[in-house]
């Protein structure tokens, strides 16, 4: 039955709908550039969602843990063998995404007898100057987006949400509040505010408009009191080649303003 083109299109549409439903509950992830690097944050339950891929590359993901794990291991494997056979400088996020991950995710999605990847990925690569930083999203169907959902090119932040509405509101918030030259504590605040906006735009009583500042902070503090937080940075000027560093709970909490 799948041989008929119409059935194939229908099968793909069903599959898309199914995956979107599965991803809808995913806790958002915000990645923002700041003065000395790039910061990733999210809040959630016990499962880790922000990962080190290579010296200058980090990944955040929402979706099924099993699928995230397969993609994460594939990305690390590819980056590590490239870095070993050539050099760390030859490992590039652009090539990793365009030539390796995206084609695999696309064909898994379109081969309707097999299982697709239930995952949405957000990558960032730190360059030697802010101009060379790269933010990149890969969706479950292999689609790559380097710019924002709302069509702003070369913005220095990126978000990942379970739903389009959640992600769009986060971007809208960051377009207003994000400061490229902010110090890390300020970036932490903006990033967790953005996360809160994304989270408030999910579920049954979701907001469709940007919430007021007080409402965001109130919601954020409630969530921070209950949920585990996760934060990591890619630092530009580190003596070590490895730029990825997980932020300790105390470091994040001491930066948060009331």
């Amino acid at each position, binding site marked *: 039955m799948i041989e008929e083109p119409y059935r194939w299109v229908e099968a793909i549409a069903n599959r898309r709908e199914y995956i979107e439903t599965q991803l809808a509950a995913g806790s958002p992830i915000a990645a923002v550039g700041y003065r000395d690097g790039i910061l990733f944050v999210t809040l959630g339950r016990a499962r880790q969602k922000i990962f080190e891929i290579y010296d200058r590359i980090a990944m955040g993901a929402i979706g099924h843990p099993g699928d995230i794990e397969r993609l994460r291991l594939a990305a*690390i494997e590819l980056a*590590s063998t490239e*870095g070993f056979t050539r050099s760390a400088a030859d490992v590039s996020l652009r090539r990793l995404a365009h030539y390796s991950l995206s084609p695999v995710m696309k064909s898994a999605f379109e081969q309707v007898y097999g299982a697709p990847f239930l995952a949405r990925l957000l990558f960032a690569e730190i360059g030697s100057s802010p101009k060379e930083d790269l933010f990149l999203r890969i969706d479950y169907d292999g689609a790559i987006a380097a710019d924002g959902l709302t069509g702003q090119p070369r913005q220095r932040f990126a978000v990942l949400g379970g739903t389009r509405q959640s992600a769009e509101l986060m971007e809208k918030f960051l377009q207003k509040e994000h400061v490229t030259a902010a110090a890390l504590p300020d970036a932490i605040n903006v990033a967790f505010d953005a996360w809160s906006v994304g989270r408030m735009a999910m579920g049954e009583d979701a907001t469709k408009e940007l919430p007021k500042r007080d409402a965001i902070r109130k919601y954020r503090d409630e969530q921070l009191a209950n949920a585990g937080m996760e934060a990591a940075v890619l630092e530009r000027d580190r003596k*070590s080649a*490895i730029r990825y560093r997980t932020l300790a709970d105390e470091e994040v909490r001491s930066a948060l303003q009331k």
Partner: protein
Amino acid sequence: MDKPPLALDQNFSGASEDFPALLRRKGMLQIAPEPTAATGTHPFVQTESTTILAFKFAGGVLVAGDRRATAGNTVVYDRADKVLEIDRHSIMAIAGVPATAWEMARVLEHSLQYFRRTQLQEMSVDGKVRALSKLLRDNFGFVMQGVGVVVPIFATYDGNSKPEARLYFYDAMGAQFEVTDYAATGSGSPAVRGILYYENNWGAKKLQELGEEEAVAIALRALDTAAEADTSTGGVDRGGKIFPLIKIVSREGITTLPDEKIAGVFKQKVA
């Protein structure tokens, strides 16, 4: 014939595999072949022409190496780095054939990072020590053929172990030996071992009680002594101002001592 039950790890390509195994699967790393009739077996020759040493002192572990690289009786290079950083708290110092040794250090460095990234935890000290041992064992075919012998020292610092500073030396087959105070390998090492043994037992202080400057002075004196009798050890090139490479690993990580600092200690306490 019944098929054997599917092993759990057959379903996973990455989780249980270490980095050298991954490289071998991709054809990027070979186990050194055992000697055949054609290649022949050569008597084991001590070709690790260099001197490297390491000892524990009050500020962590000091690892030092001379800078000379030789081919037969020719000096080919006078700025070789034989003390290499493997991760934030581990140093590998190498005596032996540079091509093999540097490649081995590269594999080890990537192995530890690959483990941390995939498994989301640091490899234990014992795991790191064993990883180097396996690389040496895989290389033993080349040693038997008379090429590619490597005899490293491995120093690491682990805040969770007792003692916190750990120091190992290896033989060419991959056996590891943990030492309490000091280690030295390479052609100039007999002299160095003599000095360190003497200092540790009858010196003004035990090695583990030395401050940084005193430790650097002893390392420089030891390398200078080794170079006095061993042509393959560079010691200190006073004319060219080429100093040994000295790194210190402590709880805070690894520091490479700048040349000016080494020159200062050398001028005061050695020259």
